[in-house]
């Protein structure tokens, strides 16, 4: 494989993930050391954290792979990929809002809204289907779990 036919690329998403992992490990290690330096505290955590950081260093080169020139994604490919990730991000965002709004707006309303939005994002464009399904599903899941679980679910309407 000749050098000119290859190009180094940066996989930004992978770099970001690796940074998150490294920061979490480092922060945890420092926090553990801040709690106490006794062996009863650090016996497993310290060696594991060091090992983890070494592994991060070993994986790091894989973030900058050399790719054959013809495999470097062109603009159209990139746009398609971005679109796919975008849809996932939208759904994930909706899911996040759903999770954090459960206790404030009630499980019933949050569920109804999230299922409706999720259905729409996933490709169901008939609004009456979206509305009916979300309503029926919310009622079923709320009453179902309430009957089975020894906790109250904060509700607004049901």
């Amino acid at each position: 494989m000749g050098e000119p036919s290859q190009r180094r690329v940066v996989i930004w998403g992978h770099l970001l993930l690796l940074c998150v992992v490294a920061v979490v490990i480092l922060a945890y290690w420092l926090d553990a050391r801040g709690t106490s330096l006794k062996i009863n505290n650090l016996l497993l955590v310290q060696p594991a954290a060091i090992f983890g950081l070494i592994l991060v260093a070993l994986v790091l080169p894989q973030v900058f792979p050399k790719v054959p020139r013809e495999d470097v994604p062109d603009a159209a490919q990139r746009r398609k990929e971005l679109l796919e990730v975008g849809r996932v991000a939208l759904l994930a965002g909706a899911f996040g809002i759903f999770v954090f709004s459960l206790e404030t707006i009630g499980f019933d309303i949050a569920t109804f809204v999230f299922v409706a939005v999720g259905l729409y994002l996933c490709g169901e464009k008939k609004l009456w289907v979206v509305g009916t399904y979300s309503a029926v599903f919310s009622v079923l899941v709320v009453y179902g779990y309430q009957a089975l679980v020894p906790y109250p679910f904060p509700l607004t309407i049901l």
Partner: protein
Amino acid sequence: MSKTLTRRTMLKVASGGIAASFAAPAILRAQSTYPDRPISVVVPFDTGGYNDRLARAFAPFLQEAIGQPLTIINRGGGGALLGHSYFMQQPDDGYSILCTSAAPYMPLNILTQDAPFKLEDFHMINLPSRDYTLMATSSESDIKDIEDVITRLKADAGALSIGIQPASADLVNVMLFADANGIDRDGLRLVTYDGGGPARNATAGAVVDIGLVGGQGFIPLAEKVRPLLVFDDSARDGWTSPTVTELNGADAEFVAGSQRGWGVHASFVEKHPDRYQTLLSAIESASKDEATITSLKAQDLATDWIGPEASNKALAATARVMTQHIDLLKGT
């Protein structure tokens, strides 16, 4: 188990099921008086533990006495910190009551976990279950008695491995025991366990030389262990070992073990004295009811009536001793 049944059994089962699931109020009250809707019982532990079993076993009798169904809400985690905090966030209107191991968890939450509440925020109605630390060894062990333990530990404080829970009344007790008997407390070989159960199993299986754990939990394992010392001022549960007051004199220092039972918000007592009286007398009459006593005794659950005054006093006393030894409770 007789050989008749079928129809009779089915009827009994069916009626039992109905009684259990609907819990029809036995005393009908006017709508305006307390309680006019179901009462929640917050248990700051998961299903299956002592407090959960106590709450579920006592609930049928209490709901009959108070005339409204009880809903049990388990909020386990963080050594009862999460459940206690959750309870404090509930309105102090008497529709949420607490069934918990007030000691040692409330003092521990406050002393070691920056709890968002004070001991004075709670008011205990009845703490019928009062545990104690038991020092024990495996029945196969060559340790004969408490004198033997003291002799060995005096010669070398690390001679015996000691199974114990960190941040517990038991840990305070072993330190007080070391001080009282001329043993170097810093040299002790402590082996820490996350729960009473694992620590007891390790003791019974001779994985550790001695264990200090809540004594009531040892009862099912009585055959597998030899009791060495009871940390209380009188003999408990038929253990043949001496008590700490017999060993170190009547003024020997020790901490009581878990104190479990029923509590409410302290502010509820001031805001709604009439409701408080209703709840108090319901718990009192349910606790003293013959049927309750038979049923709970069979499950090894406590139902004695101690009353609010003695309960709160005992809890405060335990909290005081634990505060004195706060340095012991923060990691070993």
